[in-house]
């Protein structure tokens, strides 16, 4: 198809569309015949004048208006300025004819930008088209909103867009446009998408139409990246949808689902990935040819790299990538290098990549700059202390011939690598200076600032650095950046090498002085500062230095003049106390984040689409917080701290307070850091609808019943019935939920989401063993199995949010009857045993006691009710243990994670006359009684229905009377 399309691109003449406007065709043909640009301009100006006249005359028919607007559009596309006719174009939008409206909208999207004044005129027309019952009009309006995406439009129309998206009467092609329009608005103004829309939007991922599902998934992906909690329901949906697609092997268009990481879904994804990989590997020929398949393959490889660094898949991948980077296909080479860079950033060992080092270095010589760039990225990522020297050497070598476009980035990267992996301090100095000498023009200030910081902070570097830089400065051709470094370093450390051959003070001075003339003002300022330091260090050459200051005290540059005058005055003071203080050696720079990395990342910047991983260097992965360069021990500050703190001006080093100098040194110290950037726009915190705070009415009936039973109906209404079956073994619980559709039609997009209060997340965990079918036909049932395990005593029960589409979105939140007592097993004890243990446990804190009556009227306690309840709470009721036969005594064992077992004992003393109960629970662990007693009291208080009987809450006295006859053990 492609080739046939391509080959015919030139071969045919004008193809006619019968509805075309003849005037327009003629005009375009005229322009095509105008060979010279002047002729084209003449023709265009003539036409513009004509159209302007026509518009001025007014009373044009819709057809003519459309034709002229089309001509204007064509002129505009050719790149000419069209500054009139916008109003006529906007008027076309409110036309009744589709073709006119269409051109009107096209013109609007091309002519009007976000802040255009005419834009507020069209909002009402767009609203009218959005609510029109003609879907084609809806579509045009959606296109317009998606194209312009201004805040005003978003605020005024997002409600309508959302309505079109979720309305059951919307056609598929409207829905998908609405979804993407909403996405566009969200990207521009995140607050336009309201939090409460989340659930409804997620449910659309199950839409039968692939186009809708695809569009909605794009939308959900953007939303979920910013609000992972709120959209967590989408992960499961995406995974199950993906599975369906994979089974049918239509995976090309939906690869994007892989992006969403979710622990539960991971296994599933991994299986799918293996399958994709196998498919791709089985057909190596197709890998070369088929872009779509490669697209999925590379996305899959990136995900595998992201998910896991240890699986067998990794091995396959690195050998595969090794082949890719040698491919004859440029695209594949490019992508192979990119994926390998990602691998280098993630993998624990770089060995598999190092095998390919020579090929990667070879890619620096590729004739395509895109590939060269990727090769550079990869070399940067795969560098460590073992291969730093060859790689840096190779990069330096390549730098000489590199394109200008990537030189600055290369210099930065070389500088970072040199600093990071230097094992040999001399190597660091050599490379850095060579780098600057070679590519001086591309060296940003950060690089030489950093060199000075490091030399200043490392005592053993100073002599070597000073010697070297002096040699550079002595040379005839020396880059200005080197002069800057030379000025600074010699001023600070020149005295350390003054005894060496060829490094005497006068030679240092002459070297710097010879460069003074050819340098910019800022460099001269640095040299002048070095000279005042020389005055302090080398009194023997003071006259020559004074001469220079005198000469510069007449210069036209006010900054240099001020400096020279001040230095002159400072050097001429009768005693040199002040001079010595001011020119004291610079204190080491505070350890700080390398500005180089900030600089590099500034270049990468933030992309609008936040991916779960960053394809890039290791440090890009680490995020900006951890950028601080881990300096090699070799370069760690070895400076013995200066005993004497200079009285003043110490932090300014050689500064005597002149503005320029001050700036200079603070630049060095403070190397402008990358701002942390503006705060991300956050969406308003949305309510978690699955949480216990949003329980549906009527949840309690089934819950209370199931507290005492292992299976039964949790919830039922006209449309749905939720049944529960549960089995407890030790600390584990297996819960199976049954969902029956009682509605007269099938329900779709059936989704369940589990939630638990954050404080309990450690105490009770679960694993979802299966998902309910997303569509449940009428009268049928679907089920879901969940395994819970109790790691600690927990107090709050998990909740489940069930949502489905039956016309509109229906949703309910129910509390699952999973409570701590369910993990108990009844125990048998003899009377002796019971009391022995009871006494062993003793009172508080391992005891909890409560006295209470029935809640509400018409209800009472009686023996059978209490027996049933206590039994339901999984106590072994020990008959005949208590002397008072009315009392209940029970024992049980609670199973908790880690094989722990807690013994629990219960004593319940009823007073049927007063309708009061006293409940005492003791357990071998103090966390158990409070929780247990709370659920039991809540349940017991309900009592059993009876004839009307007035209930008066007991007073304290009544209570003590009532229990007066009971012997408390």
């Amino acid at each position, binding site marked *: 198809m492609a080739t046939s*399309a391509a080959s015919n691109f030139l071969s045919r003449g004008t193809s006619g569309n019968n509805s075309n406007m003849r005037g327009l065709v003629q005009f375009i043909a005229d322009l095509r015949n105008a060979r010279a640009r002047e002729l084209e301009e003449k023709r265009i100006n003539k036409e513009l004048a004509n159209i302007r006249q026509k518009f001025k005359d007014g009373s044009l028919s819709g057809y003519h208006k459309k034709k002229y607007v089309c001509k204007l559009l064509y002129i505009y596309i050719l790149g000419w300025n069209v500054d009139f006719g916008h109003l006529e174009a906007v008027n076309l939008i409110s036309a009744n004819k589709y073709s006119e409206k*269409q051109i009107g909208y096209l013109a609007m999207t091309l002519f009007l930008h976000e802040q255009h004044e005419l834009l507020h005129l069209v909002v009402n027309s767009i609203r009218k088209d959005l609510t029109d019952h003609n879907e*084609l009009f809806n579509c045009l309006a959606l296109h317009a909103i998606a194209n312009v995406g201004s805040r005003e439009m978003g605020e005024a129309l997002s409600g309508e867009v959302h309505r079109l998206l979720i309305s059951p009467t919307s056609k598929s092609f409207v829905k998908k446009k609405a979804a993407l329009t909403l996405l*566009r608005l969200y990207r521009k103004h995140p607050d336009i998408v309201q939090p409460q829309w989340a659930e409804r939007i997620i449910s659309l991922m199950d839409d039968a139409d692939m186009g809708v599902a695809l569009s909605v998934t794009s939308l959900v992906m953007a939303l979920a990246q910013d609000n992972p909690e709120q959209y967590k329901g989408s992960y499961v949906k995406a995974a199950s949808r993906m599975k369906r697609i994979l089974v049918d092997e239509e995976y090309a268009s939906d690869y994007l689902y892989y992006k969403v990481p979710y622990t539960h879904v991971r296994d599933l994804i991994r299986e799918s990935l293996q399958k994709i990989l196998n498919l791709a590997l089985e057909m190596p020929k197709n890998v070369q040819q088929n872009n779509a398949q490669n697209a999925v393959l590379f996305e899959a490889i990136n995900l595998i790299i992201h998910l896991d660094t240890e699986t067998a898949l990794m091995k396959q991948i690195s050998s595969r990538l090794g082949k890719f980077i040698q491919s004859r296909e440029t695209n594949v080479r490019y992508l192979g290098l990119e994926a390998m860079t990602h691998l280098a950033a993630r993998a624990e060992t770089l060995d598999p990549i190092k095998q390919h080092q020579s090929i990667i270095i070879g890619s620096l010589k590729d004739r395509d700059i895109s590939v060269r760039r990727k090769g550079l990225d990869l070399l940067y990522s795969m560098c460590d202390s073992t291969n730093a020297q060859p790689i840096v050497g190779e990069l330096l070598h390549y730098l000489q011939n590199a394109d200008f476009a990537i030189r600055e980035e290369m210099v930065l990267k070389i500088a970072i690598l040199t600093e990071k992996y230097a094992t040999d301090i001399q190597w660091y100095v050599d490379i850095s200076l060579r780098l600057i000498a070679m590519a001086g023009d591309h060296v940003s200030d950060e690089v030489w600032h950093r060199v000075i910081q490091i030399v200043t902070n490392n005592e053993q570097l100073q002599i070597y650095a000073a010697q070297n830089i002096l040699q550079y400065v002595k040379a005839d051709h020396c880059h200005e950046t080197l002069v800057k470094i030379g000025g600074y370093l010699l001023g600070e450390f020149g005295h350390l090498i003054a005894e060496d051959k060829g490094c005497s003070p006068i030679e240092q001075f002459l070297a710097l002085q010879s460069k003074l003339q050819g340098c910019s003002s800022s460099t001269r300022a640095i040299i002048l500062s070095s000279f005042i330091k020389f005055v302090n260090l080398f009194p023997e050459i003071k006259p020559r230095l004074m001469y220079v200051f005198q000469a510069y005290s007449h210069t036209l540059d006010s900054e240099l003049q001020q400096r020279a005058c001040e230095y002159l005055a400072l050097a001429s003071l009768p005693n040199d106390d002040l001079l010595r203080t001011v020119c004291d050696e610079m204190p080491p720079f505070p350890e700080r984040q390398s500005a180089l990395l900030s600089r590099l990342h500034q270049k990468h910047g*933030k992309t609008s689409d936040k991916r779960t991983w960053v394809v890039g260097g290791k440090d890009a992965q680490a995020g900006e917080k951890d950028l601080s360069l881990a300096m090699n021990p070799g370069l760690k500050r070895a400076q013995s701290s200066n005993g004497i703190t200079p009285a003043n001006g110490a932090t300014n080093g050689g500064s005597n307070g002149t503005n320029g100098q001050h700036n200079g040194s603070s630049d060095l110290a403070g190397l402008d850091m990358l701002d942390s950037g503006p705060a991300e726009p956050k969406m308003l915190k949305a309510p978690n609808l699955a949480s216990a705070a949003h329980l549906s009415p009527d949840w309690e009936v089934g819950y209370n019943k199931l507290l005492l039973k292992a299976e039964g109906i949790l919830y039922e209404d006209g449309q749905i019935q939720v049944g529960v079956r549960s089995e407890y073994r030790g600390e584990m619980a297996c819960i199976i939920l049954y969902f029956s559709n009682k509605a007269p039609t099938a329900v779709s997009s059936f989704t369940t989401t589990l939630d638990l209060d954050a404080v309990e997340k450690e105490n009770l965990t679960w694993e979802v063993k299966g998902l309910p079918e997303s569509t449940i036909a009428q009268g049928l049932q679907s089920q879901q199995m969940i395994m819970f395990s109790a790691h600690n005593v927990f107090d709050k029960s998990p909740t489940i949010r069930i949502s489905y589409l039956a016309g509109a979105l229906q949703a309910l939140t129910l509390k699952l009857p999973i409570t701590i007592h369910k993990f108990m097993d009844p125990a048998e004890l003899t009377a002796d045993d019971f009391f022995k243990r009871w006494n062993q446990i003793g009172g508080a804190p391992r005891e909890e006691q409560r006295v209470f009556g029935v809640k509400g009227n018409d209800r009472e306690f009686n023996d059978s009710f209490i027996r049933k309840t206590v039994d339901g709470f999984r106590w072994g009721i020990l008959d005949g243990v208590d002397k008072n036969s009315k009392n209940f005594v029970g024992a049980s064992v609670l199973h908790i994670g880690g094989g722990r077992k807690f013994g629990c004992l219960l004593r319940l003393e009823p007073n049927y006359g007063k309708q009061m109960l006293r409940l005492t629970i003791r357990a071998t662990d103090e966390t158990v009684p409070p929780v247990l007693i709370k659920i039991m009291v809540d349940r017991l208080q309900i009592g059993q229905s009876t004839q009307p009987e007035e209930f008066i809450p007991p007073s304290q006295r009544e209570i003590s009377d009532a229990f007066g006859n009971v012997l408390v053990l």
Partner: protein
Amino acid sequence: MPINYLILLSRQGKVRLAKWFTTLSPKEKAKIIKDVSQLVLARRTRMCNFLEYKGAEVLKDALKLETNTLPLDSKIVYRRYASLFFIAGCNSTDNELITLEIVHRYVEQMDKYYGNVCELDIIFNFQKAYFILDELLLAGEMQESSKKNVLRVISAQDTIEDTEVDEEVTKIM
């Protein structure tokens, strides 16, 4: 994985179609078109289809802009079909091959509609080329990957237009 812009460029460097999926000022658009044209036209055959173009950085420097309207780090995915370059700007994290396939899908779609599409079709029926693109991509995202569906919508549009033209003609007569 949004595409930020799609530009159709003739070999002579003339823009045949430009569609922007992010909001940009006219100045920014002109600058991008100029830079991208230069980059792409300089490419030789058998080079890869991907190019780095730091759009935002360039714009910031060139136009002294405070705000970044473009995603900072972007790349270009382009492909040449006979005399036309199809150029898509996308984010650096995007899947290049998928972007390439989207471009290809657009070409196929036009091929299906015009029947052996050529540059002239796009010149003379530029509005149609825009309409087809609108059906394929919205907000820079793939909207419909089924060729049949897109074709159906576009044909429906044509039918409406034809009837409207017929009405016009009858009225004039």
